[in-house]
């Protein structure tokens, strides 16, 4: 913006009414920038909510000002500080509240605002903000506020005018902001500037715009907005065709391993998956040239099970479907037909965590869309969940963590995602399986979660594993290498033989349940498992026990009773 343009009309004092207008405009500016700021958020926790947090904090601050009937600067700024304190959200919100607190402290007993006041207040804001942290990290909103204050001070020396001072302040702030990636490695890595700093800059810019009267705020914009309503814009589809095929490799291509195929194809699109065994390879890719992929397949062998879907069309249809839904059940008939046509996939996706190929296959067969490898002593990271959630087509997703220690990572991923993700806190595989058995794609996500949670209450899980260290639990002396029997996550039996421990466990907790299922681990062969089954059936007079090969590590037997 041009500073000179406004110079003919020097402004050295601002009254409360003008200041109020500046505040409202800055709130609007921050609101406009909110999504941008969210997307910059990588520090201190990359959860993409800095913009939203700052906006909501500032909104509360400004609402406090709105309640005032006074137009005295000191009363307005202390209202601002109070509102921000009460409404502070997130790290950036707390910092903003301290900035505003400092700002108001410098303006005690002022009914109007002079340029000198403003410059002092900006400095004080930064100083107070710096006091709030033990180890100030440079390259954040703090740095931007400090440099902005320096800009204001420099400007005051050369011109006693609000337009000029604010414009220079903004200039300094922007320069400081652009340097933040050099100061904070996390920012550089993500190739962004600091989110909080951007927020502060937006507020300053809004103040200037409000002073110039360039923007008018709308009363509507000042209503309380709940954070949940914020939604990221849908990702644009870069590659149109979801292409899948199987290749039966020619003999002379056997040596061509999966990695090589993956390398060959990776430049043709994204979401590439190449899996296979021996001479059959499955390829999944999102590409703009399905023909090229098919040709490639033909070079390697003969191809079958080809599927090519136009995802752009699908996503448009999905949007249409949602619009239609909102329009209620007006002309039901024709819509129903449309729904049938567009219903190309499940409404809800399921992600589950487990180890062992057998269990993975069982889960897949039961409708799990993505199995994440992990479990005891190998917890998947939040990031793995986030990636999995992103990759699934469905926008509503259930996660089954299947381990007590994984639940929190799953929940964190759920809160990070912009899809609807619910975590059903399954602590083991039998709970996951009983939850999957009540899966119903017709009900809402909440209802489904509730149904699953009810169901997992009904299953009793018995596991055996080997103790990795000496310990004492509930009066049981456990030595390293002992076989321990666990009932619903509590250690109940200690022994030295798998079979005997299982029998002891049955003695202890079997309550005439009829549905008994044994999943045997990678260290157990089928014969042993069948022997155990026979023994149990005879000893406890059970009609039928199902036995599955789970191939899970660490737990030789996992048994469910329902």
């Amino acid at each position, binding site marked *: 913006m041009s500073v000179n343009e406004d110079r003919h009309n020097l402004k050295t004092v601002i009254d409360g009414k003008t200041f109020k207008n500046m505040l409202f405009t800055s709130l609007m500016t921050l609101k406009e920038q909110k999504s941008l700021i969210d997307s910059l958020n990588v520090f201190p*926790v990359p959860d993409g909510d800095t913009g939203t947090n700052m906006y909501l904090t500032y909104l509360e601050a400004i609402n406090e000002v709105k309640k005032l009937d006074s137009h005295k600067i000191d009363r307005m700024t202390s209202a601002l500080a109070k509102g921000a304190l009460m409404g502070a959200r997130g790290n950036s919100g707390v910092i903003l509240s301290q900035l505003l607190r400092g700002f108001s402290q410098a303006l005690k007993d002022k009914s109007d605002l002079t340029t000198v006041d403003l410059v002092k207040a900006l400095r004080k804001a930064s100083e107070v903000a710096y*006091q709030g942290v033990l180890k100030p990290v440079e390259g954040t909103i703090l740095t931007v506020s400090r440099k902005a204050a320096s800009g204001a001070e420099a400007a005051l020396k050369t011109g006693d005018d609000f337009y000029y001072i604010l414009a220079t302040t903004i200039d300094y702030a922007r320069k400081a902001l652009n340097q933040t990636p050099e100061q904070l490695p996390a920012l550089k890595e993500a190739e962004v500037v600091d989110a909080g700093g951007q927020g502060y800059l937006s507020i300053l810019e809004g103040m200037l715009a409000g002073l110039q009267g360039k923007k008018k705020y709308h009363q509507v914009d000042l209503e309380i907005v709940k954070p949940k309503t914020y939604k990221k814009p849908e990702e644009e589809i870069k590659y149109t065709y979801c292409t899948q095929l199987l290749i039966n490799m020619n003999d002379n291509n056997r040596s061509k391993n999966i990695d090589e195929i993956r390398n060959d194809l990776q430049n043709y699109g994204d979401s590439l998956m190449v899996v296979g065994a021996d001479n059959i390879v499955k390829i999944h890719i999102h590409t703009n040239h399905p023909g090229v992929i098919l040709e490639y397949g033909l070079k390697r062998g003969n191809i079958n099970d080809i599927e090519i879907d136009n995802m752009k069309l699908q996503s448009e249809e999905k949007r249409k479907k949602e619009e239609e839904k909102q329009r209620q059940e007006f002309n039901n008939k024709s819509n129903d037909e449309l729904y049938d046509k567009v219903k190309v996939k499940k409404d809800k996706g399921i992600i589950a965590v487990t180890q062992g190929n057998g269990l993975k296959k069982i889960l897949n067969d039961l409708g799990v869309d993505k199995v994440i490898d992990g479990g005891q002593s190998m917890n998947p990271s939040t990031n793995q969940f986030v990636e999995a959630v992103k990759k699934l087509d469905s926008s509503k997703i259930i996660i089954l963590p299947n381990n007590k220690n994984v639940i929190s990572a799953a929940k964190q991923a759920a809160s990070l995602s912009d899809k609807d993700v619910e975590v059903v806190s399954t602590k083991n595989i039998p709970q996951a399986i009983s939850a999957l058995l009540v899966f119903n794609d017709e009900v809402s996500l909440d209802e489904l979660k509730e149904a699953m949670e009810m169901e997992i209450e009904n299953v009793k899980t018995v596991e055996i594993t080997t103790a990795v260290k000496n310990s004492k639990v509930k009066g049981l002396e456990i030595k390293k290498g002992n076989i321990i029997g666990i009932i619903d996550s509590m250690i109940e039996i200690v022994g030295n033989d798998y079979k005997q421990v299982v029998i002891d466990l049955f003695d202890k907790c079997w309550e005439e349940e009829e549905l008994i299922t044994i999943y045997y681990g990678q260290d157990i062969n089928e014969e042993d498992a069948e022997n155990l089954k026979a023994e149990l059936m005879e000893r406890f007079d059970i009609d039928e026990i199902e036995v599955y090969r789970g191939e899970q590590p660490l737990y030789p037997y996992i048994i469910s009773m329902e």
Partner: protein
Amino acid sequence: MEKEWTNEYGKITIAQEVIAKIAGLAAMECYGLVGMSSRNMQDGIADLLGWDNLTKGVLVDIKDDQVSLELNIIVEYGTNIQEVANNVVERVRYILQEKIGINVDKININVQGVRVGNVG
């Protein structure tokens, strides 16, 4: 006690002290937190701890593979203490997950003191 797990190549052990230190450092970077205080609070004095012994303000408890933390913190006067505590929990949980791959079961925050800055 230490936290340990095994992968295909061997066993990984992380000492309690390491978890305490990383948690302490992560907390220190949180806005609004201006110090840690000693965990021995019988004398009732919330003493600010320096950098060297910040881990004294962090209590790590490892039981049955579950890691829980207790942080004794001192907060700057004038900040929204509840929100600062929330931010500390969030950041510590995130850093432990990210840096050492530990899912923390529980993080308890004790606000042991409020520091009044030079102004106000």
